[in-house]
């Protein structure tokens, strides 16, 4: 049996209320009030599609053996690199080693489901056993556009395999349509689209029923055979129309998280699938439909394993871990839409020395250190001479993964002098449980959430952006564990 073994959703912590956007930009186009409901998830200044995919992937990998994963697929239309395999960065960050196949899936928004399909069919064929599929997007609408409100940032990840699956893959049906509803050319930063009325009438209303009928016919099923129908369509009124067209009772519709997250590109239908799995019961049949340059429809049946394999309601947990991004301009600055003065200190040249990064790829991208085989002391960064003054053994080290170890704050500060997109720059010494320590930036927190002894977890983040060369560099940051009252 092949299917989904585990999964994870990821929604960044910051949420921008759409009324805040409208208050700032509504003067330009008052009609955007139609979309000014709910909030959109906004990636932190140090997040992008790669880091969000890693976050979702880590949830899917929780407490799992990482040594037998044979491939990593990444789908996104907002990949930080045109050349340099984005999925290769993700697999290093996930601690999966390099003896695997990795691939980027891009272009249309259905790339997420296509990546998942590719993995499922590969496992189904028996040629591979365990593959990781990630999808993330961080699309930008221009200020005052409807898309600025509609889009949100999020990610989803699935571990696909043929043992202990929580949802069995039963079949699929695909359409590919060169339909230019949304498009970005080679150098485009912002979304462009064609008229909504055409997109709805000629696109959504045509393709979604077509792909669903195609799948139902192929497997001799009726829409009511499904417990949940998951489809990507951000137009609220259109969803009602589609439900009727498909003959779906309202309870079959899986919510699209538009009011909490926003349309999250290639991750949209997959985040909805993760959310559906959070609530699923054994025997439930799920139909997943993506939209964008055509559609993929995928059909799953939830197994008995769901009870023990639930990722502790991964999507619900992300949704509840939220903080208001109450200043619209902060969003503009984080996305590099509005130029900001950060002082001359921010203008230091931060170029990437690629040969150095290659040597240190495990240390920097993977957060691997070393553990002394003589005295057992874990140390970061990796050492050749043991740091334990009682030991000092030379070249007795084994590789040791730190990214999955919890840690505690040893000391901290909030620095107003350091150039930061979210001052004060918070950082401090963190000791890993089990040994080892390093100075980390803290992220997704405020200064008053830091204290000596506070537990932290580690998150893969964009460490720097080399504007001169368009290069994103990545490392790990510490996030204080929220206090549970």
């Amino acid at each position, binding site marked *: 049996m092949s299917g989904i073994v585990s999964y994870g959703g990821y929604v960044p912590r910051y949420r921008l209320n759409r009324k805040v956007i409208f208050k700032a930009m509504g003067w330009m186009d008052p009609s955007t009030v139609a979309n000014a409901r709910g909030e959109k998830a906004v990636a932190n200044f140090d997040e992008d599609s790669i880091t969000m995919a890693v976050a979702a992937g880590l949830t899917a990998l929780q407490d799992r053996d990482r040594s037998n994963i044979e491939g990593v697929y990444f789908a996104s239309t907002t990949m930080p690199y045109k050349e340099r395999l984005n999925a290769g960065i993700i697999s290093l960050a996930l601690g999966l080693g390099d003896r695997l196949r990795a691939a980027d899936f891009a272009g249309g928004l259905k790339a997420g489901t296509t990546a998942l399909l590719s993995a499922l069919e590969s496992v189904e064929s028996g040629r591979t056993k365990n593959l990781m599929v990630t999808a993330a997007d961080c699309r930008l609408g221009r200020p005052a556009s409807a898309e600025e409100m509609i889009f949100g940032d999020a990610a989803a990840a699935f571990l696909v395999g043929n043992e202990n699956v929580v949802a069995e893959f039963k079949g699929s049906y695909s359409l590919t349509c060169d339909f230019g509803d949304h498009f970005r050319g080679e150098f485009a930063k912002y979304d462009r689209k064609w008229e909504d009325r055409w997109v709805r009438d000629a696109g959504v209303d045509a393709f979604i029923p077509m792909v669903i009928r195609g799948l139902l016919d192929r497997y001799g099923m009726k829409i009511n055979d499904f417990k949940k129908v998951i489809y990507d369509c951000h137009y609220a009124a259109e969803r009602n129309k589609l439900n009727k067209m498909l003959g779906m009772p309202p309870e079959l519709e899986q919510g699209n998280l538009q009011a909490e997250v926003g349309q999250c590109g290639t991750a949209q239908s997959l985040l909805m699938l993760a959310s559906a799995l959070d609530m699923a019961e054994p025997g439930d049949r799920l139909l997943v439909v993506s939209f964008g340059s055509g559609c993929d429809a995928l059909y799953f049946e939830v197994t008995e394993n769901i009870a023990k394999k639930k990722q502790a309601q991964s999507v619900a947990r992300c949704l509840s871990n939220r903080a208001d991004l109450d200043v619209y301009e902060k969003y503009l600055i984080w996305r590099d839409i509005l130029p900001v003065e950060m002082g001359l*200190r921010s203008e230091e040249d931060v170029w990437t020395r690629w040969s150095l990064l290659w040597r240190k790829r495990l240390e920097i991208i993977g957060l691997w250190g070393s553990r002394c085989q003589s005295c057992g002391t874990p140390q970061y960064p990796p050492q050749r001479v043991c*740091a334990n003054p009682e030991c000092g053994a030379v070249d007795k080290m084994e590789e040791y993964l730190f990214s999955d170890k919890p840690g505690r704050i040893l*000391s901290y*500060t909030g620095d107003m*002098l350091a150039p930061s997109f979210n001052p004060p720059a918070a950082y401090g010494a963190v000791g890993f449980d089990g040994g080892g320590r390093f100075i980390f*930036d803290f992220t997704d927190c405020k200064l008053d959430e830091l204290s*000596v002894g506070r537990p932290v977890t580690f998150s893969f983040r964009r460490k720097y952006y080399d504007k001169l060369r368009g290069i994103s560099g990545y490392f790990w940051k510490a996030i204080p564990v929220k206090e549970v009252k």
Partner: protein
Amino acid sequence: MASGIKDKVAILGMGCTRFGERWESGADDLMVEAFTECLADAGIEKKEIQACYYGIHYDELSMGKSALPVAVTLKLPYIPATRLDNYCATGTEAFRAACYSVAAGVYDIVLALGVEKLKDTGYGGLPLGNAMGASPWMSFANMTAPGMFAQIASAYSAKWGVPMDKIKDAIAHISVRSHKNGVSNPRAHLRSLVTMEQVKAAPMIAYPLGLFDCCGVSDGSAAAIVTTPEIARSLKKNQDLVLVKSLSIAASSGEEEAFNTWDGAHFATTRIAATKAYGEAGIKNPREEVSMMEVHDCFSITEFVTMEDLHISPKGGAYDDIMSGFYDMDGKVPCQIDGGLKCFGHPIGASGLRMIYAFYEQFLDRVPEARKVKNARIGLTHNLGGFPWHNLCSISIIGRG
């Protein structure tokens, strides 16, 4: 068996520029200024100098690498010249090398000169430059000097249970005292009095350090000509000797940053360097025997814990000594008698020599009555270069002969 440096080297002459935002001066101007005073004070001719040790840290902001800038600027006549850099201990390292070369009997008269031109960066604070290697931005936290040192406060507070507001009081006392000491020093950069209220209300730089918890950033140069006590005695018949009692330096071993025992609330290097310095100088009880100190108050919190790490205040007990005035100008062991880094700023290559200069002036009774330390016999300088978990500590003890 090595016998240490005690009483083997004398200071023949010293020079020190005014420290400050020397917009009109480059590193070359500053070197000429310090050297000219130093040479005149030594009462010798330039050609009598047999070797030169030159300390500068940010060569990229000044005149480039190597010792050639000092040799060419001062027109030193083809003598051995060597550049030293050891972070904030750089000035002291130039002095240490000069002293060792004399003590070794290799040379009779040697110049140590330190300089730093910082105020060509265009912004406040120290530049990061390339101080941390090839690509620190790839994994190092978004750190600045105040933020690295500020962390001591949170760790100290947690370790000793001293609440942050008490730490804020003590470090404010330190800054107020330093400003008071520096106000009448013509070579100091910052020469104004500040109040406890001003210090505590200042804008936050790196929690919990406010603006007045940070030393100034300035340009400056200082120089010393050292020789043997015999030569000094023959050249300076009517003057007390100023003798080197000990020169100590300890570099982090990697234990603080990579092992699991360091508490983040003290400087391991300072404790070791101090113990060795006292041993070399024959000091049994530093609290009683040290007459005055110039310590590395890059940030007030650094001075706070250094009082313990120098084995003068009890561990965990600096607060009481600081607040009782023990380290004030009229206290038992006056500290920062010329205003410290707080008022002089910290031109890295020059600071260690500037501190020695402060004692040199005292021992030769060259300071006005108001700035005089009574019965000064032993002075201790302390430099701390790097970060709390990765640093060099140098300690020099200088005495009246």
